[in-house]
């Protein structure tokens, strides 16, 4: 289902809107903040939730902010619980089609599982260049 993208602009005119969210209890926000700023510098509209968000808060923020992409940063090891939960909550808000990316400390095996089961569309881990994240978002949103 197509959500209202607002302002009567076409996708290529409107800035890409990204939610950068910190679900779970860990306080490691360096990565989330660096990514948020890089996306902003790349011309995107970034909404950063701040720390310690519940899955419900993240999904609700995604809906309220009408974002094109959701990014989750998790470094507490709780990704296998939190990512599927948030994906389901997004689906419950007719946002199943919104690309979901995950960043943080996610072992390869878990990353493969999240991707294979459709809970995440991309997993970025330490050492991945910011450019790779930016390119991925542009491709997902505009087919660039």
């Amino acid at each position, binding site marked *: 289902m197509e959500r209202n993208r607002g302002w009567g602009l076409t996708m290529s005119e409107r800035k890409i809107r990204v939610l950068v969210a910190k679900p779970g*209890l860990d306080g490691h926000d*360096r990565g989330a*903040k660096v990514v948020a700023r890089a996306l902003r510098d790349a011309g995107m509209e970034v909404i950063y939730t701040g720390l310690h968000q519940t899955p419900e808060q993240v999904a609700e923020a995604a809906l309220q902010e009408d974002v094109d992409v959701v990014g989750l940063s998790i470094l507490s090891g709780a990704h296998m619980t939190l990512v599927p939960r948030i994906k389901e909550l997004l689906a419950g808000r007719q946002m199943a089609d919104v690309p979901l990316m995950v960043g943080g400390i996610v072992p390869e095996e878990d990353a493969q599982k999240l991707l294979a089961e459709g809970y995440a569309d991309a997993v970025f881990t330490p050492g991945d260049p910011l450019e790779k994240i930016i390119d991925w978002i542009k491709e997902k949103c505009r087919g660039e």
Partner: protein
Amino acid sequence: MWDQEKMAELKETAARQAYRGKNGERCSAFTTISGAAVKDLYTPADIENLDYLRDLGFPGKYPYTRGVQENMYRGRLWTMRQFSGFGDAYDSNRRYRYLLDQGQTGLSVAFDMPTIMGYDSDHPRAEGEVGRCGVAIDSLADMEVLFSGIPLDKITTSMTINGPASVLWCMYLAAAEKQGVTWDKIGGTIQNDILKEYIAQKSWIFPPEPSMRLITDIFAFASRHVPRWNTISISGYHIREAGSTAVQELAFTLADGFAYVEAGIAAGLDVDEFAPRLSFFFNAHLDFFEEICKYRAARRIWARRMKEHYGAKNPRSWMMRFHTQTAGCSLTAQEPENNIVRTALEALAAVLGGTQSLHTNSMDEVLALPTEKAVRIALRTQQIIAYESGVANTIDPLGGSYFIEALTSRMEAEAEDYFKRIDELGGVLAAIDRGFFQQEIADAAYAFQQAVEQGERIVVGVNRFASGEPLQIELLKIDPAVEQKQVERLRELKQKRDAIAVSVCLDRLKKAAAGTENLIPHILEAVKAYATEGEIIAALKEVFGEYKEQPLF
């Protein structure tokens, strides 16, 4: 040492040499990892104003630039203290015994996120997080298991806990009593540094004011009843991990330290009553000399402030004792074995900087909690430095180096500039409120990442010399059944304990929290009645409320 004429000649020669060298240099600008300029050559001209007795002195003597002990590592080596904890108390107890068997000389407890945030394992917010990045501790019963078979009068323990530090500390005190060990015999450290939580680590619970009260309550209680306990570990580690420069780490940490001293004095304590038990915790990052200078500058600044500004008379109040951990943020997920080398260099800097205790990161910590093999190599790294390298044979071996002394003084001056700015903002709490530290750190983190992305900073195996080979390393897995077992144990505990006693204790605690008396005796009573951490924190939240951040990036 130098007359004016000779000094002028020396300066001229050094400048000529630098000018000639410019053409053949491999970079346009040489900087530390923090972006501070580094010259080609340092000479006596760079430390012209240094006065040996005033600025360096002797080890174990004011201003302690060369170290806090008279004989430093010739007497006793630093404590080798690996930060460790995962799964439940049984899992972690096994790991502690293993580390002690391998020659580790102190314990350092890593708690899981629910414990750090004051939630029990059965709280909805704890789901998926129990035992994941530390050990799950819900009550005194878990604490008893955690230290079973480990004599608390022989081993010192450091606990990385902040918001709920008072509760976990009371559990430790009660566990010691159960072992028959009196409080005058136990030693250790609680991190208990809430200011750096607001600034960098972001694991807060209560707003600043009641948080500072809990901290000064601990200062007061410990000075009377637990004299060997380090009541706080004022931490730059997390500030650096969040992306700060070395000078920011130095300045913000010491500014926090001054704020705690002022809070103690404001709470009616004499500075010499609590200052000797304040301790510090720094990062050891990759830029070797910058790190060594950071530790030396930190000791000098602290000693001067404590003596001259706060009027401390006990030399122990002037001495900055600190723990060091190698930089987690310097490790790479690519070619993780290279992290062993990075960690060794960082550990060497910490030792040459005169640390009192040290944690060396394991090569796999950027990927998961460390395996037993990885943590053994990390510990062996310290042992090789201690017993094979010879660097611990003499005191402050780099003292007197033109470069080291010039950089130490420069970092001290730059830190003093930050102290002025923080004062102008109205002090540490006001600066936190205005997002000053948070923004400074976020800016530095972003600048560093940009430099890496653009290849100005080389990270071996990542943006240069990358082999591209797939990762082959064994990782520690946390059994998902841990959470269920822990929740089950918690349920059993709640059935077994005297529920009325628990609720009486919690009510008393709430009343006390609404007043002004010291809260530690009340928390101890609740802990001994097997009230859980989550229950005690929830009771305090009712009175104190919760902290809310203003997200910025």
